[in-house]
C-alpha cells in the first residue's frame, strides 16, 4: 500500500504542522536565550566566570518555562469540549486536531524531562565553576562563599539548589510511573503520582527565589571590560587590551553593580495553572449532584445497560462521561461512552458497560439483584436501593464529527460500538437535519450474542429509513470473527440483520475500495473504535493511494 501524498496530507498534515510549530517555538526560545546570555553586555562578567554552561542552563530553563505552561493546556477537558462544541469558532480541521490532545501533552512532558536533564547537567557544571572560578574582583557575583567550596554544600544551602533537587525527584517519579506498562497494569499508581504535579508547580515558582544568577545593572556607566580608574593598562590581560583598543572603552565611571533576576516562571505558569484549577473546580461542582438510576438492564456477553437521570444534563452524540461510585471505590473514576443522549422528549441518558475488571464487577453486583436460591414464589415488591453515583462530564470525543461529513464510515469492534450507538439513536430521532448523507456501519464482534445489544436500534433505524425512501442512507455490515456453530439470528424482527451478517474478518481494502467507488471525489470520514489491529490497518489504508479520487480521513476513538 503506497502512501499517497494527498491522502497523507489530509490525514496527517495538521498534526505535523502543529508539531513543526511547537518544535520551532522551542528552538527559537532556546537560541534566543542562548544568544542573550552569551553576547549580552549585562551578562559579560557572569559569562566569563561560568562559561557556556550559563548559556545552556538559561536557554534550557526558558524552554522548560514554555513547556511547563503548555503541558497543562491539553488537560483542560471541559474547555476542549466547549471549543469542540462551538461551531462558529473552529473548523473541522481544528476539531480534528483536538483529538490529539493526549499526544501533545505527552510530547510536552517528554520535552520537560529532556530539557530538565540538560538544565541540571549545565547547572552542575556552573556549580563547579562557581566554586573554582571564585571571583575576587566582583564579590557580589559569587554564589559560593569561598574559593573551592564543595558544590554539594552550595546545592544544599541555597533555595534554587534544594528546590531543584525536589523538582527533579518529583519529575522522575511522575515520569517513571506514567510509562505504558504501569498505566495499563495499575492506573491508580499513575494517577496518584501524576497528581504530584501541583507540588511540582508550587516548588517551580519559588525555584528562582534567592537570585543565584545576577546581571549587571549599570552597563552604560561601567561598560564590561573597562579599565578601573586606578589601574594601568599593563595590568590588563592581553585579550582585554586588544578589545580595549578596538572598542575604545576607556575608564569605568563607577563600579559594576549586580542585581539578581526576579523569578519569571510564575509569569509563564500561573495562567495555565489557574485555568486548570478553575476547570477542576468546575468539574467538581458539576459532578457533586448525584444521578438517579432509572433502569438497569442485563444484556448478553457480560454487558449492563444503565439508564440515568440528572438535572440540566446536556450531551451530544459521541461524548463520554466519567463515573464515580463511592460504594465501590471512593477515588476511582472510570470513563464510559454515552449510548443514549438526553433529548427534548426523553431526558434519560444511558451507558453500556462491559464487565471486565474488579470495579465493574463490584458495581454490577451492587446494581443487579442477586439470584437467590430460596426466593419465594410470591412476587414481592422490593425497594431497589441503587448505590449513589456521581458523573463527571460530558467530555467530547472524535465521534462527534460523524454528522459533519457527507459520507461517514463507522467501524466498531465489540463494545467499541457504544459511541456509534448514540449516533444511530440521534439519526433515529431525526436524520434530516445533518450534513451526513450516507453512513456505512461496520460492526465486528467475536460472538453472535453481542449483536443483541443494539439489534433493536439497528433494525428500527433501517426500517425508518426504508419507509422514508432513503434506503441508501444506512449501509450495515455485521461480522462475526469467530466461526462457531449456530451462526444466525433466527428472530423474524431481526431479519435485516441476519441478511447482513457475514462470518469471518472483514477485508478492509476491498471495503474501502467499494466505498470509494460509490462516493467518488468525496471526503469520507472514517471513525474507528476498536482493537489496535483494526485501527492500525485502517489508518494505513486511509493514508494510501486511492484510484477513485476519494479521500478518507481517519479518526480514532481510543479506549483508555
Amino acid at each position, binding site marked *: 500500500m503506497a502512501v499517497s501524498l494527498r491522502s497523507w496530507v489530509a490525514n496527517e498534515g495538521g498534526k505535523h504542522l502543529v508539531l513543526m510549530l511547537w518544535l520551532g517555538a522551542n528552538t527559537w526560545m532556546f537560541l534566543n536565550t542562548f544568544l542573550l546570555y552569551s553576547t549580552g553586555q549585562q551578562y559579560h562578567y557572569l559569562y566569563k566566570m561560568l562559561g557556556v554552561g550559563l548559556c545552556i542552563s538559561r536557554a534550557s530553563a526558558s524552554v522548560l518555562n514554555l513547556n511547563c505552561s503548555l503541558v497543562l493546556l491539553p488537560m483542560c477537558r471541559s474547555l476542549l469540549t466547549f471549543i469542540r462544541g462551538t461551531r462558529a469558532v473552529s473548523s473541522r480541521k481544528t476539531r480534528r486536531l483536538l483529538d490529539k490532545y493526549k499526544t501533545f501533552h505527552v510530547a510536552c512532558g517528554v520535552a520537560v524531562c529532556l530539557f530538565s536533564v540538560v538544565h541540571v547537567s549545565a547547572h*552542575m557544571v556552573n556549580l563547579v565553576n562557581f566554586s573554582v572560578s571564585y571571583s575576587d574582583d566582583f564579590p557580589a557575583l559569587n554564589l559560593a562563599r569561598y574559593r573551592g567550596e564543595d558544590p554539594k554544600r552550595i546545592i544544599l544551602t541555597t533555595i534554587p539548589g534544594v528546590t531543584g533537587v525536589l523538582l*527533579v*525527584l518529583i519529575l*522522575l517519579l511522575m515520569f*517513571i510511573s506514567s*510509562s505504558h506498562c*504501569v498505566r495499563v497494569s*495499575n492506573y491508580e499508581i499513575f494517577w496518584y503520582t501524576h497528581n504530584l504535579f501541583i507540588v511540582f508547580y508550587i516548588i517551580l515558582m519559588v525555584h528562582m527565589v534567592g537570585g543565584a544568577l545576577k546581571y549587571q545593572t549599570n552597563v552604560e556607566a561601567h561598560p564590561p571590560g573597562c579599565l578601573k580608574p586606578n589601574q594601568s593598562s599593563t595590568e590588563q590581560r592581553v585579550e582585554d587590551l586588544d578589545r580595549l583598543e578596538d572598542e575604545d572603552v576607556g575608564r569605568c565611571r563607577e563600579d559594576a553593580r549586580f542585581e539578581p533576576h526576579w523569578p519569571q516562571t510564575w509569569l509563564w505558569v500561573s495562567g495555565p495553572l489557574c485555568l486548570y484549577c478553575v476547570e477542576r473546580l468546575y468539574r467538581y461542582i458539576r459532578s457533586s449532584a448525584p444521578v438517579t438510576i432509572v433502569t438497569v438492564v442485563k444484556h448478553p456477553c457480560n454487558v449492563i445497560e444503565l439508564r440515568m437521570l440528572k438535572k440540566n444534563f446536556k450531551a451530544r452524540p459521541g461524548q463520554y462521561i466519567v463515573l464515580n461510585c463511592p460504594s465501590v471505590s471512593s477515588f476511582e473514576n472510570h470513563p464510559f461512552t454515552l449510548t443514549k443522549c438526553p433529548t427534548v422528549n426523553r431526558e434519560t441518558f444511558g451507558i453500556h458497560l462491559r464487565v471486565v475488571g474488579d470495579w465493574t464487577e463490584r458495581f454490577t453486583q451492587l446494581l443487579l439483584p442477586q439470584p437467590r436460591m430460596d426466593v419465594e414464589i410470591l412476587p414481592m415488591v422490593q425497594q431497589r436501593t441503587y448505590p449513589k453515583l456521581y458523573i463527571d462530564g460530558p467530555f467530547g470525543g472524535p465521534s462527534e464529527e460523524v454528522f459533519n461529513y457527507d459520507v461517514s464510515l463507522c467501524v466498531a469492534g465489540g463494545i467499541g460500538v457504544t459511541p456509534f450507538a448514540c449516533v444511530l439513536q440521534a439519526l433515529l430521532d431525526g436524520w434530516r437535519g445533518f450534513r451526513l448523507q450516507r453512513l456505512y456501519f461496520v460492526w465486528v464482534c467475536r460472538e453472535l450474542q453481542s449483536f443483541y445489544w443494539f439489534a433493536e436500534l439497528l433494525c428500527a433505524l433501517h426500517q425508518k429509513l426504508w419507509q422514508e425512501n432513503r434506503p441508501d442512507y444506512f449501509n450495515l455490515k455485521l461480522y462475526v470473527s469467530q466461526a462457531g456453530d449456530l451462526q444466525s439470528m433466527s428472530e423474524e424482527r431481526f431479519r435485516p440483520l441476519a441478511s447482513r451478517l457475514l462470518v469471518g474478518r472483514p477485508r478492509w481494502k476491498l471495503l474501502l475500495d467499494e466505498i470509494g467507488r460509490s462516493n467518488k471525489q468525496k471526503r469520507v470520514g472514517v471513525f474507528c473504535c476498536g482493537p489496535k489491529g483494526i485501527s492500525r490497518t485502517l489508518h494505513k489504508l486511509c493514508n494510501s493511494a486511492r484510484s477513485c479520487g476519494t479521500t478518507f480521513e481517519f479518526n480514532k476513538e481510543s479506549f483508555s
Partner: protein
Amino acid sequence: MGKIEWAMWANEQALASGLILLTGGIVGVAGQFRGWEFAAYAVAAGVFVCLLEYPRSKRAKGTSVERTGQYCFTVCVKAFGPLTRNYYVRAFLHAAICVPGGFMLATVLGCVCLGIASLIYLAAAIRGEHWEPILPRKDVRKPVAESIKNPPQNPPPRPPPEMRRKPAKELESSAYDNPIAVTDE
C-alpha cells in the same frame, strides 16, 4: 480498591535508577571529578541493577508484557532461585547498593531514585508479592483421546444390505429405506 501490584512500578523505577546511576557514574569518571572512585563504583552498580531489573516479572492477574529480548536475562535471574524471587532481598540489596552513590555529586540522583525503588520493593514484599519468570508457554499437546485408539467397530447406522436393495418395482422411491425418518426442517 483492587490489588495494586507494587512490584511492577518498583521494577520500572529500579531500572530507571540503574540507568541514571550508570550515566552519573560515566560522567563522574570521564570528568575525573573529586571522588571519582565512587563514580567508578556507580558504573558497576548501575550495570548490575540494570541486568537484575531488566526481566519483568509475570503478573499475578492479567497479561504480562515482556521487554524485548528479556528471555536470556530471565534465565540468568531465575538461576539464583530464592535470592531473586524474594522482594525483601531485592529491597535491602538496592538500599545497600545506593548508599555509596550518595557521596559524589554526579551519582546522588541515582542513589535517591534507587532508594525510592527499594522502598517500593519493600512495600511489594510486605504485600506478599514475589518474582515469577515469564517463560515461553510450552504447548501441551492434548493427550490423545481414548476414542482415537479405538475406531468405531460398527459402520454408521444404516440397514443391512438385504434390506437396502429394494425390489425393482419400487424404484421410484428412494434408493434405500431409512429406518429413521428424515424430515426437512
